């Protein structure tokens, strides 16, 4: 008792100091959380609320229950844009991550540092160029009669392809440009991942007589699996929101053949002023992203290897 009596003043001092620290902590996060409440959390709940209404921004929102969601099922165009978005996502993720991995493995081989620097710079640069600018350039490269791509394909005896105005070729064209634009990002992340693999693992395996493919399959791939996982997640969330490139290249055409989900949402909301219905669609996208991310994390347990 006597001892604690002596300690009391300093404990009180400590308590006020702890109070001060906590107060400072709340003050420091306040700006972030104000913005968070107004522009992220608030709008999520508002979007859920709006999806239960009919609202054209002129008259007050009218509560309609789940009827917007019921309408989704019979909306033929919605199915079409969902299909486009999923096709885009599957191929964009596979190609962006796959090509990025191949490039990183190649650049990681033995070569003069100047070359490494050069390749890294060249492959990464398009990542920094706005998708909108890339699309403005590629739109001309893709032209059927005047475009550079068809001109060179002509030498291989390939008849001019209607890249941007036929249903068959419009999605491949958009995906191809996306890979050109984005794969450098994944390459760079893979390069960092490759450099984190201890060289001694390879040497030990070589002593055991492992061949090239075995080194890649049993050392590189498992050691790289967290990076692959990260890249797939990032690529997927990005691809599901594809907008800029398609808006500039084709504006969704021909017909709805290349229209993405986000384009459809903005059309419904800002051209047709069906805010409630558009909100219901965006809630479905949100749900898809959450579910896919959770599935990814669940599946990741089986193939992602952490030290």
């Amino acid at each position: 008792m006597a001892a604690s009596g002596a300690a009391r003043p300093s404990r009180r001092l400590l308590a006020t100091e702890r109070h001060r620290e906590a107060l400072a902590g709340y003050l420091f996060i306040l700006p972030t959380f104000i913005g968070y409440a107004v522009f992220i959390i608030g709008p999520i709940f508002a979007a859920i609320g709006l999806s239960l209404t009919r609202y054209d921004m002129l008259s007050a929102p009218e509560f309609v229950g789940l009827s917007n969601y019921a309408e989704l099922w019979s909306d033929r165009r919605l199915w079409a844009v969902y299909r486009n978005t999923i096709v885009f996502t599957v191929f964009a993720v596979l190609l962006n991550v796959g090509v990025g991995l191949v490039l990183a493995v190649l650049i990681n081989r033995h070569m003069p540092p100047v070359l490494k620097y050069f390749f890294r710079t060249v492959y990464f640069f398009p990542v920094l160029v706005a998708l909108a600018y890339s699309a403005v350039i590629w739109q001309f490269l893709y032209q059927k009669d005047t475009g550079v791509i068809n001109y060179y394909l002509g030498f291989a005896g390939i008849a001019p392809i209607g890249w941007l105005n036929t249903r068959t070729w419009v999605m491949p064209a958009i995906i191809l440009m996306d890979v050109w634009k984005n794969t450098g990002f994944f390459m760079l992340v893979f390069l960092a991942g490759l450099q984190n693999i201890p060289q001694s693992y390879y040497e030990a395996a070589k002593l055991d007589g492992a061949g090239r493919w075995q080194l890649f399959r049993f050392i590189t791939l498992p050691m790289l699996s967290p990076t692959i996982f990260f890249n797939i997640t990032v690529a997927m969330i990005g691809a599901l929101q594809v907008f800029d490139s398609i808006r500039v290249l084709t504006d969704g055409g021909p017909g709805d053949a290349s229209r993405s989900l986000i384009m459809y949402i903005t059309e419904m909301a800002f051209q047709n002023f069906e805010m409630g219905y558009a909100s219901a669609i965006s809630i479905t996208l949100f749900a898809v992203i959450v579910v896919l991310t959770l599935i990814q994390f669940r599946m990741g347990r089986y193939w992602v290897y952490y030290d």
Partner: protein
Amino acid sequence: MATTSRLDAQAAAERRTVRYDRLIDAAAIAVLFLGAAVMVLPFMWMFSTSLRLTADAFKLPPDWIPRQWHWENYAAVFQSSVPFVRFALNSSIVTSLVVVGQLVTCSMAAFAFAKLRFPGRNLLFFVLLASLMVPGQVTIIPVFIIMRQLGLVDSLAALILPSLISAFGVFLLRQFFLGLPQDLIEAAKIDGAGPFMQFARIALPLAGPALASLAIITFNGTWNNYFNPYIFINTWEKMTLPLGITVLRGYLNSGSIAALMAGVTMAILPMLVFFLIAQRWFIQGVTHTGIKG
């Protein structure tokens, strides 16, 4: 005798694999050069077209290396009734305010989450992190309604305000602050420094590289953003470059594709120069995100 010959055979086999490895290296370099050409050609086409006479714009095969030097195409961008300078100015205003804003809000919150103790800290951080899963496009309708209520539709403020905070930025900087030795903070405390002093005098000056990474990622994302201006802005006077370029495209039409490419070249140039100067930070930023994300 027997052992030496076996060693010889082993050495020969090793030499063979090394030689084979060199061959693969050479093949890798060849493939990478081919791919590099694909990466660069669209930009070369853009640049050489920007210097051609409009009549030659669709010439096939195109001159990959410019042979004509019609710099007046660049002047034409400024002389057209599309306010290109205004676009560039708007982009600069929006980008610089967003970058500065995020550096302030994110570094403060990140420091608090990394180094200050307060009840609910972990829960609040988790709640913030969860929002990384929410794409901006999903919340765009309510945010648009908010902006309309505030009378900010078709103003630069609509592009700036929602971007002044970033959950990603808080996450990135928190990782950095976590790595700062606690001893530094404790020493400052003994010298009587409160939380503000610890933040401003100790943590911030050491955070240069992390702040640079965040600044660059934010700069790039904001400078290139097309979606938000597309939703919020509808007059030329308020447009930023990416949206402005697409307006320029419609306005000049295919007749003046040379001038359009001149505009695109000028819009891309700052990014190229900036990248060549600050490449280290760009790469560090991406690497940080990838490895620690």
